[in-house]
């Protein structure tokens, strides 16, 4: 156990150490201060027909994102429908059924990467690389763009515009996602992750001389961005538990690091951008505390939560975990991938102990704000900060303000939209599913654990996480269509609300802080923010969790 803690602490130090310079770099890039690729950047603008000094209104910014994502959806959807007639399909895989194509397209443009299929048996190299990988980049880029639009809402004064979406998107991809993914992909290849366009290999296994098909493909390039962009959609069905996606300890560390790296760095960028590093630090500390608390529970539960399997698990709960990863690396990956809205897995979450599984579920149910998705996690967190500021601000006898911006009815409406959508859709999605008579037949477990499987699936989809508890059969026509719709709503309603929030804030004056102003960067505020996040999450999900993992836990207790 002490080795696990040691490993976790080392990981956190490494993570924070890298994210600080990266955060500063992202800030400089996104504010147009570092433009070392200016010719390329300007070339792209010229192609898009955008001026170098273009500014967009709130509405235009939102519409641009919706149209851009809409086009991405149509392209991806049709690629899958036409897969069998398109090139780069050495395995001659069939076209994808429409409902699965819809689900997958919705899943990838929303940065969810819920996968109701196995990559190696369903998608061609073309669909994977030109279709999915591209969306992995742009959906992450959209998240970062919206975050910076919101940041500009705080920094600008009496302005009607919130920046230009095309600039934000171009910069986030060109300077951040592409170069880092490229570097990571190269390192992954060096560790043994495949990157090829050759067909699958049939090999003769050592045992009994049986033949086995080894799936291949341009995996490394997709895996790099899947981790960095909090996407999480594996190239292969087994995701990062598969040796060709995650072969060594080094690849495991790098992939794990990449899950949290950009969301972590964005907190630093936020502080820089609002010209008050303490604000960014407070957010980062809040996220780290919540993360560490969850991690501790998962660790303890996985290590000691299985004592009643007498004589079986001497070293913690190893069911569903890779031997090379063990309890420690699986627990931290599981916690990280659900804290951030990544969703890639290196172990089977369904096999976690009830409390371990509950923590991962709960991290998603908090609204994917503990790190969360790139960009989207932080703007979700900002919504919670505004909520906290609203209540706490009143208690110091002033109408609430955050970073000098007064929080008025319109802002509250937008904040509530951001906060409201995920829990409502999680609960409603689960409720609709359990009402279906065939629901029980989609489960691999019965009792409380069976309910957990459904709840986990909808927590994952309705928070744009994409990780799977497995056990729940995701591939039915119903879950494909219903889940696809949920993922679209839960991505674009909060996102649009965040953009309109940015527009409204941008148009306000900035109020100077005084002794009478509530501090949003001190210890008390961090504590209060954690309490608000926890209470809102707990109030929303305690009854459901009581019927799932909590009942599971108590029932399993001797």
């Amino acid at each position, binding site marked *: 156990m002490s080795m696990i803690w040691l490993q976790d602490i080392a990981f956190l130090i490494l993570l924070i150490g890298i994210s600080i310079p990266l955060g500063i770099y992202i800030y400089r890039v996104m504010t147009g201060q570092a433009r070392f690729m200016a010719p390329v950047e300007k070339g792209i603008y010229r192609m898009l027909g955008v001026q170098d000094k273009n500014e967009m209104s709130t509405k235009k910014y939102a519409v641009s994102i919706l149209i851009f994502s809409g086009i991405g959806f149509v392209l991806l959807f049709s690629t899958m429908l036409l897969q069998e007639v398109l090139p780069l399909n050495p395995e001659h895989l069939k076209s994808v059924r429409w409902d699965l194509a819809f689900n997958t397209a919705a899943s990838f443009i929303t940065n969810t990467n819920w996968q109701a299929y196995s990559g190696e048996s369903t998608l061609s190299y073309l669909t994977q690389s030109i279709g999915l990988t591209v969306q992995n980049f742009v959906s992450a880029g959209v998240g970062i763009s919206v975050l910076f639009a919101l940041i500009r809402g705080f920094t600008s004064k009496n302005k009607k515009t919130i920046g230009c979406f095309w600039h934000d998107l171009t910069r986030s991809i060109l300077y951040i996602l592409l170069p880092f993914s490229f570097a990571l992909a190269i390192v992954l290849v060096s560790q043994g992750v495949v990157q090829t366009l050759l067909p699958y290999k049939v090999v003769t296994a050592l045992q009994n001389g049986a033949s086995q098909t080894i799936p291949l493909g341009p995996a490394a390039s997709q895996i790099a961005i899947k981790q960095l962009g909090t996407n999480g959609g594996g190239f292969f069905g087994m995701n990062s538990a598969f040796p060709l996606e995650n072969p060594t300890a080094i690849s495991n560390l790098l992939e794990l690091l990449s899950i949290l790296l950009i969301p972590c760095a964005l907190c630093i960028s936020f502080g820089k951008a609002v010209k008050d590093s303490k604000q960014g630090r407070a957010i980062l500390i809040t996220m780290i505390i919540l993360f560490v608390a969850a991690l501790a529970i998962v660790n303890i539960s996985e290590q000691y939560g299985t004592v009643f399997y007498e004589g079986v698990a001497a070293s913690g709960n190893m069911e569903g975990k890779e031997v090379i990863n063990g309890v420690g690396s699986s627990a931290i990956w599981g916690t990280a991938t659900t804290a951030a809205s990544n969703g890639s897995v290196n172990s089977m979450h369904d096999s976690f102990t009830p409390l371990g599984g509950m923590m991962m579920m709960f991290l998603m149910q908090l609204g994917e704000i503990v790190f969360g998705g790139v960009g989207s996690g932080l703007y979700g967190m900002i919504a919670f900060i505004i*909520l906290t500021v*609203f*209540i*706490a*601000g*009143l*208690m*110091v*006898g*002033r*109408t*609430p303000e955050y970073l000098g911006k007064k929080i008025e*009815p319109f802002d*509250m*409406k937008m904040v*509530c939209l951001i*906060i*409201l959508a995920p*829990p*409502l859709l999680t*609960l*409603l999605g*689960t*409720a609709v599913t*359990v*009402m279906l008579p065939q*629901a029980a037949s989609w489960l691999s477990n019965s*009792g*409380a654990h*069976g*309910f957990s499987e459904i709840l986990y699936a909808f927590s994952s989809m309705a928070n744009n996480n994409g990780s799977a508890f497995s056990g729940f059969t995701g591939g039915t026509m119903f879950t494909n269509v219903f889940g696809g719709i949920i993922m679209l709503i839960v991505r674009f309603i909060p996102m649009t609300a965040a953009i309109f929030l940015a527009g409204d804030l941008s148009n306000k*004056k*900035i*109020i*100077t802080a*005084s*002794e*009478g*102003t*509530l*501090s949003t960067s001190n210890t*008390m505020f961090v504590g*209060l923010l954690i*309490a608000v996040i926890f*209470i*809102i999450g*707990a*109030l*929303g*999900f*305690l*009854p*459901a969790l*009581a*019927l799932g993992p*909590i*009942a599971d836990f*108590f*029932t399993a*207790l001797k």
Partner: protein
Amino acid sequence: MKKQPLKNKIWTDAIKQSFVKLSPRTQLKNPVMLVVYIGAIMTTILYFLSFTGIKDENAGYTLAISLILWFTVLFANFAEAIAEGRGRAQANSLRSARKDVKAKKLKAPTNHDDYTEVLSNTLKRGDIFLATAGDQIPMDGEVIDGVASVDESAITGESAPVIRESGGDRSAVTGGTTVISDWLVVKVTAEAGESFLDKMIAMVEGASRKKTPNEIALQILLVTLTIIFVVVTATLLPFSDFAKRQAGSGEAVSITNIIALLVCLAPTTIGALLSSIGIAGMSRLNQANVLAMSGRAIEAAGDVDVLLLDKTGTITLGNRQASEFIPLKGVTEQELADAAQLSSIADETAEGRSVVVLAKERFGIRGRELSKLNANFIEFSAKTRISGVDFQDNEIRKGAAEAVKKYVLDKGGDYPDECAEIVKEVAGCGGTPLVVAKNEKVLGVIYLKDIVKNGVRERFDDLRKMGIKTIMITGDNPMTAAAIAAEAGVDDFLAEATPEAKLSLIREYQSKGHMVAMTGDGTNDAPALAQADVAVAMNSGTQAAKEAGNMVDLDSSPTKLIDIVRIGKQLLMTRGALTTFSVANDVAKYFAIIPVLFFGIYPKLEALNFMRLTSSTSAILSAIIYNALIIVALIPLALRGVKYREVSASKLLSRNLLIYGLGGISAPFIAIKLIDIILTVCGIA
């Protein structure tokens, strides 16, 4: 004596109103309580359905739940009604001041004899009327001729009469006040129904109360929480049904229990008290004799971080005190002091008394036998700006330089340049010169000095701790202003303040992101008042000033601004504290209800029932009884407001979090357990 029956009447009225407010139209205005209202209706229907055999729960239990829910709604109505009742009582006492009186409507302002008697409510804007001693002023207006003292106690509660005169800053008169001496010719500025008094009545009655922006924003938050809880509880029906099928034991949660849980979780405490907090804030302001033109203004008062304070009356005593006798050449100081003392001996004003005190201190001049002197005292009047004494063929006069100069010249004496010099010098130091003359001869000048009030320094220190900056506004020259500013401990000052300078100062602070509050009374203050975020016009001020401001101070007290800030902050704090309390309560209610709700399906969940509540019936009943009672328990707090201290934001927050956050988490654990014990003892469980 009269207070007790009045209080009883407010109570009985409020109870009556609690039932009147059960109408759906009223309930629709408060979304959180609407949920409780619908829940009450649904459980009532469920109870009656149980007679037909459709059974959701034990009929008696459903009835109990439904009754408690109805009481919850009534309690919320009562909270609002009692706050409104207090406002209405204030309005009624104001209304008694407004009766229809006969007005002497003039055809021409100059001819006082040519008037027709009309009823006050027929007066139109622009009409001119005459009011002589003993007349009630029929309508708001502006004095266009005459000087008179007016009793405004009906509006302000202040018994000392005030001077009203044409021109200048004291030209506004209010309907319902009474002329005590002399006469006034007044031009009507507001017609019946829109007069100041009418607006005031409407405001305190809450008739024209609109939800303020902050209230709306809070309402949005409460509605959001309610929506979450509606979904959380509604989905429990399919969840528990599914769990029942999976576990093969127990029952799905009943609709009655789902409604009970929803009502427990919805932020009913703050939802029920939100509007009373707003109304009570308005009433507290009225009790301070300040009339806000909108609720928004009170909220803005809480945000203010720059106070522009008029020096006179706020920082220094309104009355200056004699500090020095400055004789002219050829006159001894004692001679001057003697004359000054004599002229002031009957002067009851603070300034007059200070002259007597100074004379005693300097030269031991004591009170004299007034009857022996056979003296005739001339009182100060607003018109002559001079006072004095006639005795034994001598006339002593003291007053403003210009007035004494006129007096001396009229007497055939002359006004020496030396005196003019001294007057200028004294004025230059920020003091007020009073010239003393005996018969036609000018004796010298009394130097009246500003005295900084006791305790202002500490007050400003407190304000600074709260992050509020104080700026002294004065007409004095910069040197005097700096001296007084330093003595009083203000953060900054604006000397030789002109209305333009005030306006640009406000703009400058606002552009730096500050919220500015000021008081003003003159017409020339109007632009600055209109610019300030919180602008308090003196009731004694002009109509223009009152219209430009967003509050009117009936006492015309310059220190009122600080009280207004306090009331504004208190209002916001009360809202925040009760919201925190309401949400924090949910934690305990969950622990009370959740384990017993699913106990049938997963018996092991009993482990979560660490409150050891007797049964599911008693647990749920205890929780919703607590939920209803806490509303009543908190009504006094909502009306009174959370205690306010002048400390920094972080101290305030930690204090309020401790009381309302932690208190909000722990209080229901204790209360629910107690109610559970009582129910168990009564055998209900």
